[in-house]
C-alpha cells in the first residue's frame, strides 16, 4: 500500500532506543549510585547535637570543686536579619559599630542561612536584658552554654582545664569531636574526659528548601537524648588543699598527702598555682598567654612532674632494704666520726654523731650509718658482683613505686629515676664501679630522682607497714560511686611488717627530738624524715616526709619547698600544719611557737635570673599567639629539662652531703 512501509520499524526502533537510554540512566542514578539518597537526606535532615552538661567534681566531703556556670551565646542567621536599631543593639552588647560589622561579615562568610555565633559567652545578667528585647532584633537568638566554674579557685593543676578540641584531638577521636567542642586538656578533666563529658544527644530535624523547620525526622525515632556527664568524687580534702595552697604562697614546691588506708590523695598542691577561673570565659586566651609566660611555670604540675633528689628522706627506705636482706639489725651500732670513708675519699657527715643505732641514725640523719648499710647491701654478693647486688637493690626500691610510674589518674606523671646497673657500666666501665663509687645513693643523692607523689607514696607504704594502694585523685565515679578495682588492690613492697617498727621508731624520734623537732604537734605522734635536696643552681630544696598518727595512720605526706634550705626549717612545719589541720580540724598552739601565718607570708621565690637565650625565647613567645597545645608541650619540655638538670647535678664530682 505504501512504499515507505518498512520505515515504521526504524521509527519504532528510535522510540525504543531513546526510551531505553533514559531507563539506563534512571537505572544508574536510582539503583547503582547511592549518592543521591544521601544527598536527599542531607537536604532535609539536619543533625543537631545536644551537648550534655559536663560532670561536676566534688571533694571528699561533697564540696563542689568544679561546676557548670550558665552563660549564653548570641547567635545570628544573617539572611533573617532585618533592619533594626543597630546603635541600640551595640550599646546593649557593649560593642562598637566596627565590631558589629566585623562580626556580621564573619557570620555571613560562614553561611547566610545558617546559625553562627555572633557573641560568645555573655553573662546571665546581660542575657536577661538582651532576651527581653530579642524581638526587636530579628535574626538574632540566644543559645545556652555552660562554662566551668571553680567556687574555691583552688586545685588548678589537679582539676586541669578544658579547651576547644585541637585538630590532633579531633583526629585521634575518630570524628567524635568537631571544631569548637570543648574537651579536657589537662588534669582530671583530661583523664576522666569520657566520664565527664556524658553522652551527646542527637536530634534529626527536617528542614524544607526555605530552611523552615518541619519537625523531627521519622517522628524522632532516631533521636537520642543527651545524658549529663557523671559526677566525680575527688579524694581531695578542700580544707587542707586550700590551707596547703596558702602555705605555699610565694614559694615554689609541692605538697602531696595520701590516706594510707586507701591510697586516696588528700592534698595535691603545686606551687605557684593559678586561679582556674582565669582559664574560663572570654579572657581565657589572654590569661593563658600570661600564665604561660610566667617564669615560675604555674602550669607545671609539680607533684607528678617535678623531680627532686630525695636526699635524707630516702634513708628509712634504705634501712628497710638492709633489714629485709638481713644485713643489719636494729641494734647494730655505728660509730660516726664526722665522715665516712668510701674507699679512699671521705664522705662528710653533718656532724659527729658518735655511736648510733638504726633509730638514732634516722633521728640524727647520720650519713655514715647509711653509707655503711648501703655498702653492706652492694657487697652482699662479693665485691665483684656489685652489678648483681645493685640490680636487686634497685628492684627493691622500684617496688615502692620509686623510679616507676605509679599510674596516678592525671596525665603526664613522671617516673623519677633509679638508674640501672647498665647506666653505671656506661658511666664508668663494666666492673669499674663499687659500692664506694655510688655511695651517695645511700643517702638519697647521686642520680636518684623522685616526684613528690612518689615520696608521699613511700610514706604511705611505711605507714601501712609494707604495702600501698595505688594513689589516686578520684575516689568514686558517678551517683553509684563506682570505685575502680585497681584502687582496692594492696601492692606489697616485699618488706616484712616486723622490719618497719625499728625504722618507724627512728622516724618518730626525728619529730620528737631529731631534725624535725620544730614541727612536733602536741598530742599527735607524727613520724617523719627531713631531707635537703642539693641544688647546684641556688639554695637547696627543703624536703619533709611524714605520716601520722603512728598507730593506725590517717595521713602520709611529702612537702617540697624549693630553694629554701634544709628540710626541718620550711618543709617540716608546713607538713605539720597540714597534718594537724587534717587530723584535728584546727591548728593548735605549738610549743615551738611556730604559727602558719609566718609561713604563709614568707616569700621564698627564687630570683629569676634570665639567661640571654631565655630572654629571647620569652620575647619571641610573647609575639606569637599562644595556643594551649604549646603550653602542654612546654610543660613536657620542662620535665625533660628538669630531669636532665638534676642528672647533671648528680654527676658533679664535688658532693656536699646531707645534714
Amino acid at each position, binding site marked *: 500500500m*505504501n*512504499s*515507505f*512501509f518498512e*520505515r*515504521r520499524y*526504524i*521509527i*519504532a526502533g*528510535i*522510540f*525504543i532506543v*531513546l*526510551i531505553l*537510554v*533514559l*531507563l539506563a*540512566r*534512571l*537505572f544508574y*542514578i*536510582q*539503583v547503582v*549510585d*547511592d*549518592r*543521591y*539518597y544521601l*544527598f*536527599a*537526606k542531607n*537536604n*532535609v*535532615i539536619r543533625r543537631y547535637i545536644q551537648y550534655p552538661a559536663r560532670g561536676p567534681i566534688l571533694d571528699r566531703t561533697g564540696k563542689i570543686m568544679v561546676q557548670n556556670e550558665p552563660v549564653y551565646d548570641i547567635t545570628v542567621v544573617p539572611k533573617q536579619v532585618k533592619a533594626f536599631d543597630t546603635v541600640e543593639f551595640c550599646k546593649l552588647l557593649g560593642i562598637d559599630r566596627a565590631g558589629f560589622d566585623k562580626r556580621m561579615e564573619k557570620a555571613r562568610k560562614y553561611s547566610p542561612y545558617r546559625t553562627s555565633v555572633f557573641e560568645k559567652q555573655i553573662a546571665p545578667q546581660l542575657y536577661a536584658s538582651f532576651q527581653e528585647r530579642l524581638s526587636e532584633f530579628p535574626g538574632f537568638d540566644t543559645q545556652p552554654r555552660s562554662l566551668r566554674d571553680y567556687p574555691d579557685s583552688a586545685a588548678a593543676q589537679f582539676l586541669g582545664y578544658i579547651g576547644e578540641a585541637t585538630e590532633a584531638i579531633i583526629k585521634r577521636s575518630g570524628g567524635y569531636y568537631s571544631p569548637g567542642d570543648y574537651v579536657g586538656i589537662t588534669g582530671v578533666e583530661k583523664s576522666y574526659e569520657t566520664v565527664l563529658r556524658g553522652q551527646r544527644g542527637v536530634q534529626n530535624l*527536617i*528542614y*524544607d*528548601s*526555605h530552611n523552615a523547620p*518541619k519537625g523531627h525526622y521519622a517522628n524522632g525515632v532516631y533521636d537520642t537524648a543527651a545524658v549529663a556527664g557523671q559526677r566525680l568524687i575527688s579524694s581531695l580534702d578542700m580544707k587542707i588543699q586550700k590551707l596547703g595552697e596558702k602555705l605555699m604562697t610565694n614559694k615554689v614546691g609541692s605538697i602531696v598527702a595520701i590516706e594510707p588506708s586507701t591510697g586516696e590523695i588528700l592534698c595535691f598542691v603545686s606551687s605557684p598555682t593559678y586561679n582556674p577561673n582565669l582559664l574560663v570565659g572570654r579572657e581565657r586566651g589572654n590569661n593563658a598567654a600570661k600564665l604561660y609566660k610566667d617564669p615560675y611555670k604555674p602550669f607545671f604540675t609539680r607533684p607528678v612532674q617535678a623531680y627532686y633528689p630525695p636526699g635524707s628522706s630516702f634513708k628509712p627506705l634504705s634501712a628497710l632494704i638492709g633489714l629485709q636482706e638481713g644485713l643489719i639489725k636494729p641494734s647494730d651500732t655505728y660509730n660516726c666520726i664526722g665522715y665516712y670513708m668510701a674507699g679512699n675519699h671521705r664522705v662528710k657527715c653533718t656532724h659527729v654523731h658518735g655511736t648510733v643505732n638504726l633509730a638514732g641514725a634516722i633521728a640524727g640523719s647520720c650519713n655514715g650509718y647509711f653509707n655503711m648499710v648501703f655498702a653492706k647491701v652492694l657487697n652482699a654478693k662479693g665485691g665483684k658482683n656489685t652489678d648483681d647486688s645493685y640490680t636487686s637493690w634497685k628492684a627493691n626500691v622500684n617496688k615502692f613505686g620509686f623510679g616507676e610510674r605509679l599510674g596516678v589518674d592525671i596525665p603526664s606523671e613522671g617516673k623519677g629515676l633509679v638508674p640501672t646497673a647498665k647506666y653505671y657500666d656506661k658511666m664508668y666501665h663494666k666492673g669499674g664501679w663499687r659500692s664506694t663509687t655510688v655511695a651517695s645513693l645511700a643517702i638519697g643523692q647521686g642520680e636518684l630522682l623522685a616526684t613528690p607523689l612518689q615520696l608521699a607514696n613511700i610514706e604511705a607504704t611505711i605507714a601501712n607497714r609494707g604495702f600501698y594502694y595505688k594513689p589516686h585523685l578520684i575516689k568514686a565515679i558517678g551517683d553509684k560511686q563506682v570505685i575502680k578495682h585497681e584502687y582496692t588492690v594492696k601492692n606489697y613492697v616485699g618488706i616484712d611488717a616486723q622490719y618497719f617498727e625499728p625504722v618507724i621508731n627512728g622516724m618518730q624520734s626525728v619529730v620528737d627530738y631529731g631534725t624535725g623537732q620544730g614541727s612536733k604537734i602536741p598530742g599527735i605522734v607524727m613520724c617523719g624524715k627531713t631531707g635537703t635536696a642539693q641544688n647546684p643552681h641556688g639554695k637547696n630544696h627543703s624536703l619533709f616526709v611524714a605520716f601520722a598518727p603512728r598507730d593506725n595512720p590517717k595521713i602520709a605526706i611529702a612537702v617540697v619547698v624549693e630553694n629554701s634550705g634544709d628540710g626541718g626549717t620550711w618543709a617540716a612545719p608546713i607538713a605539720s600544719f597540714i597534718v594537724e589541720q587534717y587530723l584535728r580540724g584546727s591548728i593548735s598552739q605549738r610549743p615551738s611557737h611556730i604559727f602558719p601565718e609566718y609561713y604563709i607570708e614568707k616569700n621564698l621565690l627564687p630570683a629569676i635570673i634570665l639567661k640571654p637565650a631565655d630572654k629571647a625565647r620569652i620575647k619571641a613567645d610573647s609575639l606569637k599567639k599562644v595556643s594551649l597545645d604549646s603550653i602542654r608541650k612546654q610543660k613536657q619540655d620542662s620535665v625533660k629539662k628538669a630531669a636532665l638538670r638534676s642528672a647533671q647535678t648528680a654527676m658533679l664530682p664535688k658532693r656536699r652531703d646531707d645534714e
Partner: protein
Amino acid sequence: MNNQRGFFFNVDWITVLIYLALCTIGWFNIHAAVFDENHPSILDLETSYGRQFIFILTGLVLGTVILLLESRFLSAVSPALYVVTVLMLILVLAVGRGVGGNQAWIDLGGGFKLQPSEFAKFATCLLLARYLSATNVKVTDPKSFLIAGGIILLPMVLIKMQPDDGSTLVFCSLIFVLYREGLSTYFLVIGGILITLFITSLIFNEWYVVIAVIIVTVLAAISIKRNRPLLFKVIVGAVISIGFIFAAKPLYNKGLKKHQRDRIDVVLGLSQDKKHVGYNQNQSIIAIGSGRVWGKGYLQGTQTKYAFVPAQSTDFIFCTIGEEWGFAGSVTVLGLYLFLLLRIILIAERQRAPFSRIYGYGVASIIFCHVIINIAMAIGYMPVIGIPLPFISYGGSSLWSFTILLFILLKLDSNRMGINHA
C-alpha cells in the same frame, strides 16, 4: 462491519486504558507533589490535585465528544482549525500573560487560561495530514516538501517568539512524520551527525573533534573505496563537518541567550554551578536518584514534600514519580509510554486512509518528543526546557490538548474500515 454496531466497539480500548492509567498516575503524583496538610483529600478542589481530577473528567467528556464527531468533519475542519490556532498564537503575543518569562497564556476570565501552543500541536498535525494525504502530494517533491515544512514552521516561529523553546522543539519532532511519508533518510542521518558534532565540539577541544572526524572518514574511505560516488559524498560530508565544528562555538555563543547557554553548560558539565543555574536540575536528579529501587512510598518523598524541586506538579512531575516509586515507578511510566507509542504506530499503520496514518504518526511524534525531553531534562540529560509530561503533568490546557490529540486518532481509527478520505 463492526461499525454498524456503534463506534464504541471500534474504539481501541487498549489505548484508552493506557491513557486512563497515565492520567491516574498523574493525578496521584500531583497529590504527592503539592500535598497540603490542610487539604489532605485528593478531591479537594482548593488544591491542584482536586482541580486535576476535574480536568481528567472534563478531558474524558471532551474525548467522548470527539468520538461522537464525524471523521470527515475532522478532515474538513482542519484548515479552519489551523488558521484559528495561528491567529490565537498571534493574539497571545499581543495580549498574552506571562508565566515563567513566556507569553503563552490567554486569560479567559474566571480563573481559566488558555495556552494556544498546546492546541497548535493537534491543529498542525491535522492540517499536515490533510495536505500530505492529497493525491498529488509527495514529500520527495521539493514543492510539496516546502509547503509541508511551511505548515510546521509557521506555528513554530510564532511559538518561538513567545518564547517557548520546549513547544518549539516539539514541532521539530514532526520530521518523523515526513520521514515516514518518504523524506530522504539523509535528513535523519545528517541531523544526527550535526547534533553529535555540535555537542562534542562544545565539550571537547575542536581539534580533537576534527581529528576524530578525519579518522572516521579515513576508515570509511578505506572500507568503501570501490564505491566512487559514495566516497565522494563522504569526503564532502567530512569537509562540511569540519567547517561546522569550528562554527559550533560562535553559533552557540551568538545564537543562544545567556540563560539558555547556562542551562546547556550545566548539562554538558561545562559549569558546576549547583547553587544557581544548576540548582533545580541538581535537586531534581537528587530526588529521582534518592528513590532507589522501590521508592520512598506515596507521600513520603522528602525532596518533593519539602519543596526542593521547582515546578514539581508540572514540568518536574517525574521527580515525584522517581522519588516516591523508585526505579519500579520509572520503568512502569516509561513502559506505559513506550507501549502507547508502539500502539499508536500500530494503529497508524492499520489505517486505510493516508490522512489517518499521517495524523497517527504526528500524534506519536509529539507524545514521544514530550516524554523524551521532559524526562531527559529531569535526569540531567538535557538543559532545563519547560515542557509537560503528557497526561501526567498538572494543567488543564496540557491534559485537554493531549486528550484531543489522542482521541482524534482513536476516532479516525474507529472508522478505519469506513470512509476513505481522499
